[in-house]
């Protein structure tokens, strides 16, 4: 039988909400009894994507960030969406060490972290309209 569950969370693009977003996703995923490592991988990836929406998407201004999480058996699907400036060159953006904000001491490792800690990362973006990051992770700690 298929187990399915889903949640959505929306919040203002304040840096305080980065911690909230990763804890909310972790709390939701924890119903699948993941390992500590799986949960911390997911928290880290969510933190990166939400931070990008705050810093790059809305350039530290105000906007709404939408995060959704769907569980299908042991598959975790997460999307992080902003309606901010968007990304011109997604391929370049995903390169390790590339950052458009070195003056803010960004490391350019955000996408690399997401790709390392999750199984799949897809980025969809329209300049001037916003960005959606879709991430998937299969939990090996099946219930």
């Amino acid at each position: 039988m298929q187990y399915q569950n889903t949640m959505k969370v929306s919040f203002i693009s304040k840096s305080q909400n980065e911690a909230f977003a990763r804890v909310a996703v972790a709390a939701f995923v924890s119903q699948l009894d993941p390992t500590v490592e799986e949960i911390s991988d997911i928290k880290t990836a969510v933190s990166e994507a939400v931070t990008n929406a705050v810093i790059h998407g809305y350039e530290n201004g105000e906007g709404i960030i939408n995060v959704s999480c769907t569980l299908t058996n042991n598959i975790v699907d997460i999307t992080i969406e902003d309606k901010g400036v968007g990304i011109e060159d997604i391929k370049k953006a995903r390169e390790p060490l590339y950052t458009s904000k070195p003056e803010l001491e960004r490391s350019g490792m955000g996408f690399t972290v997401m790709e390392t800690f999750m199984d799949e990362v897809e980025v969809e973006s329209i300049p001037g309209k916003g960005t959606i990051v879709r991430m998937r992770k299969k939990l090996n700690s099946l219930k």
Partner: protein
Amino acid sequence: MDIIYSVKRGNLIVKIYGEIDHHTSETIREKLDKEFKKQNVKNIIFDFSEIQFMDSSGIGVIMGRYKNAKERGGKIGVFNLQPQVERVFKLSGLHKIINQYNSLDEAISSLQ
């Protein structure tokens, strides 16, 4: 998020309590740079015992402090990395330029 400083044999020892993300990194950076300016030290040693979470914003913080220390001819050392932080360290390549130790004593004697 709290930071406790101490100075030992030319090293600024920094123990952070809490999580290092974009939000907290701004405060950490500011406080740390102020303390480093004040103290007559070359090296910065981070005690990571109480950090259960760090994302790539933390990499930026450490790289920035690495540059500051370098200007004084110093280095950065870290010890007691927890598993999640260890994984972020590894994938970022930070472990290639930042020395990792098992204890404060080891860090102090190696950084001499």
